[in-house]
Every structure is written in C-alpha cells, then in structure tokens.
C-alpha cells in the first residue's frame, strides 16, 4: 500500500447564504459542510457515508472545485488547489474526475457515446479524431461494453450500461482520483454488484483512488479501505474499515449500523433513533447529534466535541471518549 497522501483537505467549510426581503439581505446560512478534514492516499478508497443532507455530495463537489469553499484548504499532491485559476483548474480536472448517481441525466441524450467520451478527450488535448475514436473503443472494452456501442445514444442502454459509460468517461483522461457520488444507488442489486466489481478491478489496474460517497453502508464496506461517517456537515467518525464496522465508537455510527436490515442476521436488537436529522439551517448547539443520541451526557448540548484520535488512526468526535 502506498502511503503517499494524494489529497488532503483541511477544515473545509461551505456555507450557503440565504437571502430574503426587499434588499436581499442575508437572513441565515446553511452550514452544508462545516469544518471537515481528511486525506486520501494513492490507490485508496475512502468511503463517505451519511444520511441525506449531511453534506457528503457538497464535499465531493468542493474537492473538484465545482463549488467554491467558504473556508479551508484543498491540497492535491502537495499543491494547494483551493484558489487555482481557470486554466490550471482544467489541468487539475484531468487528474480528478467524478461519477454521478444518475447516469441518465449526466449523459447528453443527443450525443453518441463516442461524442460524450470523445469530448472529454478533446478538452484534455487529444486533437486527432482517429486517435480519439481508438481510445473510446479501448475504454468501452475496458468497462465491459463493446466497440459498436460507441455509435449508440444513451437511451439505447440499460441503466447499468449507462453507469459503465459514466465510469468510462471519467476514466478516459487517466485520472488519479475519482469522486464517485452514489454510483450504485440507482441500480438493481445484480447490476450493483457488477459495477462494484468493475470499480475494484479498475482500482487494481490503474492504481486509482476513490472518494466513494454512498448512504448504503454494506456497499461502503465492500469497496472502502477507510470509512468516514458524516452527520450534519461534520465528520463524526473516521477509521479503518475493519475498525469502524467491528468497533463503532460514535453512537450515530452504532445506530446506523444497527438500522441496516440484514438477511443473514434476522431480528437483531436495533437502536432506533428518534426523530429525523435537524435542519442544517439551525443545527443544535453543542454536539449536533445530541438531540437524537441514546447515550447523551450533560455536557453534550453545551460543548462541541472535537474530532480526536483514540488510537491507531481511529478518529471520533464524541464526549464519551
């Protein structure tokens, strides 16, 4: 395993301002991502899990600079990319690519696969049309499609095949890091397994690093090396995969794990969380999870717990530790 840090983010924040009234004055802010730090090593998969609205997709988009961070630093291969200009950003995006959840809406319906993937190649400097066509076929074959598919339109494919095209398009420019935002959650189980296997194969072959965003923890477990759990814009726990699943420390992680229906372990004891995720517009004071926590202490609604190492790289933000 390579130990080189490919990507590092420090204290990343993204606040969306809410304006209202006649003069469009600021009336509040949504703290979508609120002080997140982590790193991804070369060839490693970091799984990012959490419920909807916890900021996991926003985080992925900030790393690609599709959203501008409010605060914090993004360091890629030792270079601070937080304030890169347009031109440099384009070069950077050859290295960092993204796969979206819904391949239907992320592919242009009026472009053939050849055009969709070819466009990515053209933008990143492959000027010769014949060379591009050759590369497209090469990629299609690598992601389990056939050469003749290059001339088809997105609607002619099943959703699994479309996701393969999405992966192919990301792969086309030889990236080092792929941000996969819920890449399998719209797929049927039998297809989901095919795509996960494909992503694992590609990782071994090309030494790719993934930031794998998903809400399904069993999928995360299958593909990740390390796992980060987010709640309301913050990372509450981050550890090696084995650690987090066998020895979850944060009460939220515990509850998440126990809430997953499992066919191999029926009728187990479940920790039922009361209520739903509070609004990020007005998050609870202190620990953001204290309103739903089953192990809450008196200190929890007063002080915000820092994310600290409790041994061997197992980070947790909770007053219990």
């Amino acid at each position, binding site marked *: 395993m390579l130990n080189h840090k490919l990507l590092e983010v420090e204290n990343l924040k993204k606040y969306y301002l809410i304006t209202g009234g006649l003069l469009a004055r600021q009336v509040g802010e949504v703290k979508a991502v609120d002080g997140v730090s982590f790193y991804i090593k070369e060839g490693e998969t970091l799984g990012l899990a959490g*419920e*909807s609205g916890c900021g996991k997709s926003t985080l992925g988009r900030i790393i690609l600079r599709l959203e501008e961070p409010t605060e914090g630093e993004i360091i890629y291969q030792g270079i601070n990319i937080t304030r890169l200009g347009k031109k440099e950003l384009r070069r950077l995006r050859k290295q960092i690519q993204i796969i979206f959840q819904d391949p239907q809406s992320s592919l242009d319906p009026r472009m053939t696969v050849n055009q969709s993937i070819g466009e990515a190649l053209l933008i990143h400097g492959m000027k010769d049309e014949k060379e591009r066509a050759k590369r497209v076929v090469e990629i299609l074959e690598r992601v389990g499609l056939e050469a003749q598919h290059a001339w088809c339109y997105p609607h002619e494919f*099943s959703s*699994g*095949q479309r996701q393969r095209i999405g992966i192919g398009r990301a792969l086309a420019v030889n990236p080092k890091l792929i941000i996969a935002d819920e890449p399998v959650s719209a797929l*049927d*189980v*039998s*297809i*989901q*397994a*095919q795509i*996960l*296997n494909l992503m*694992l194969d590609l990782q071994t072959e090309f030494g790719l690093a993934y930031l794998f965003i998903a*809400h*399904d*923890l*069993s*999928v995360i*477990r*299958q593909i990740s090396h390390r796992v980060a759990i987010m709640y309301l814009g913050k990372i509450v726990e981050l550890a090696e*995969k084995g650690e987090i*699943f066998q020895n979850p420390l944060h009460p939220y992680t515990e*509850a*998440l*794990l126990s*809430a*997953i*229906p*499992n*066919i*191999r*372990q*029926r*009728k187990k004891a*479940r920790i*039922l*969380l009361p*209520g*739903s*995720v509070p609004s990020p517009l007005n998050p609870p004071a202190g620990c953001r999870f204290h309103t739903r926590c089953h192990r809450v202490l008196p200190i929890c609604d007063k002080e915000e717990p820092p994310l600290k190492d409790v041994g061997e790289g197992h980070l947790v933000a909770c007053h219990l530790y």
Partner: protein
Amino acid sequence: MTETILRIRNLRTYFFTRRGTVKAVDGIDFDLLKSKCLCLVGESGCGKTVTALSILGLIDSPPGRIVGGEIYYNNLNLLECPPDQLRRIRGKEIAMVFQDAQSALNPVFTIGNQIVEQVKLHLGATTREAKEKALSLLEEVGIPTPEKVANYYPHQLSGGMRQRAMIAMSLSCDPQILIADEPTTAVDVTVKAQILDIFNQLKNTRQMSLLFITHDLGIVSEIGDRILVMYGGRVAEAATVSGLLNNPKHPYTASLIRCLPDITQVKDRLETIPGTVPSLIDPPGGCLFHPRCDKALAICREETPPPFIVAEGHTVFCHLYSHLER
C-alpha cells in the same frame, strides 16, 4: 388455518405499445392471508408495481389492459366488479402507500384536510368526527405533534414525516389490505427502520394484511411472512421468508442473495448475475431466466417451467426440480 383475503390466479396484464406487446405481468398466482405480510420482490421491470396497480384497477388503459386471470377479494372477483363498486373498495378496503410521498400527496391541501376528505367520502363521517379521526391516525403512525402537523402542507414536512402522513391517510378507512409500493426506498436508513417498525405494529394491532413491494431482501427479512420472487413478469419462487432466505431453490433467487454486499463480512469480489433483465417485448423462449442462468439445461430454452413443490409452502418454477411433484 388463517383465511385468504386476496386470491390472485393467472393474472396477466399486458401493455399494447407501438413497438409491441409488453407482457408486464404474465400469469402469476398468489394468496394473501389475513394479518400476514406478503413481499413481492424483484428487480426493476419485473412487474411488481403493475401487479399492485392491477389489484386496485389503476392500470392506464390504453395502453395497458388486464387480459386474463382472476383477482378475488374475499369472494368478490374485482375484475368483474362494476366501476362504482370498485371505487368503494379502493381506498377504503384496499389502500395503497406509494414510494414517493411528495408526489402522491396534494401540494395545495394540508395533511389534515386530505385525510378528512377521505374519511368523509368513504365513511360518511361529519367534519368534526373526521378531524378527530385524522389526529388519532397521525398519532398512530408516530407523528409527535399531530395537531400541528395536520395544519402543515406536504412541503413543510421531512421525507420521513411525509411518508408517515401518507401511511396515516391510507389507514383512514381501516383497510383490510394495505399495499405498500417501495415505501422506504426514498428515505434514509434510520428513518427506514422507524417506518418498518410502524408497518410491523400495524400488522399486529390492526390485523391488517400487507402486500409489500420492495427490491431489498434486507427489508423482507424484517417485515415479511411470505415472499414471492418475480422475474420478467412471472413468479420464480414463492416461499416463507425464512425458507427462502435460508434455502433458496431457484438459481435466480440464490444469485440475488449472493450478490448482496454483506455488512458482517467482506468478500474479495461480489458474485454477479451476468447480463441484464430481459426485454418483455421480445422475451427469450422457455424459462425467462435461462440466458443468465449458470445451471441452464437444454429444456430451459424450450419450455416454460411449471411450479414444483420443493417443501411445504415452497414452490419453485425451475426445471432443475422436475423430478419433484408438481
């Protein structure tokens, strides 16, 4: 022996499109027992939702049409029922909860209003009675402040709350059967667990029968009594939930279970099912699963497999078991 409340025999629902006839549901049989939960499971396009809509008489025609079969509710064949009688049954005795509560609720009426309307229509209650009923229903599905929520519009509620409100609405006329079509797919894991608990409670306290449509075998294991695995508009396997999960007989069911990522252990590679779901316009001959089946025999290409009984209450439609009794 518990009584059968819904009996479906050889139901066939086809859609007649310009590109050809889609056999969305092609000859399925099942029984729903009183105060039990039957889960319909399968991948997208296998006909689960069309089955539910056929029961309620909600198939758009054209292009769709129920071309054959029988749907008995108690002893009444719903397919021969005049429309106004069906309208009295639908929503009152057989209710439905949809996947996407956002689009199933009316955005311009408050939650309370929408429940009151239904109670007044079906039960002929006065407005005051209906309002009381609405509040008690909202409470029953675990909404903490029913008086407040009743005055909310759907967009003011979170996804989980909206789903509860819709369940409350479906319960408003004390239905005998509740059909739930992927009710937890659009909500988060922790909320999903809460909603499954509500369904489990309802089944027990109200003696209600539940027809639960899902693609998630994990959910089935939490809520189901019996399970029906569908593939390409036909039944592949029908059994009790524990019978099927512990001892799947159909190669399709077995692969479906194997290709689930497991939260308790990690495999190097997930098993997959090669290929994709067949086109229902031009389906493969014989057993629909044979092009993807690793155990396919010569006969599978030629003949549609009949049901074989592998154990009591466990039927499988697969030629591998042709030595057994039909």
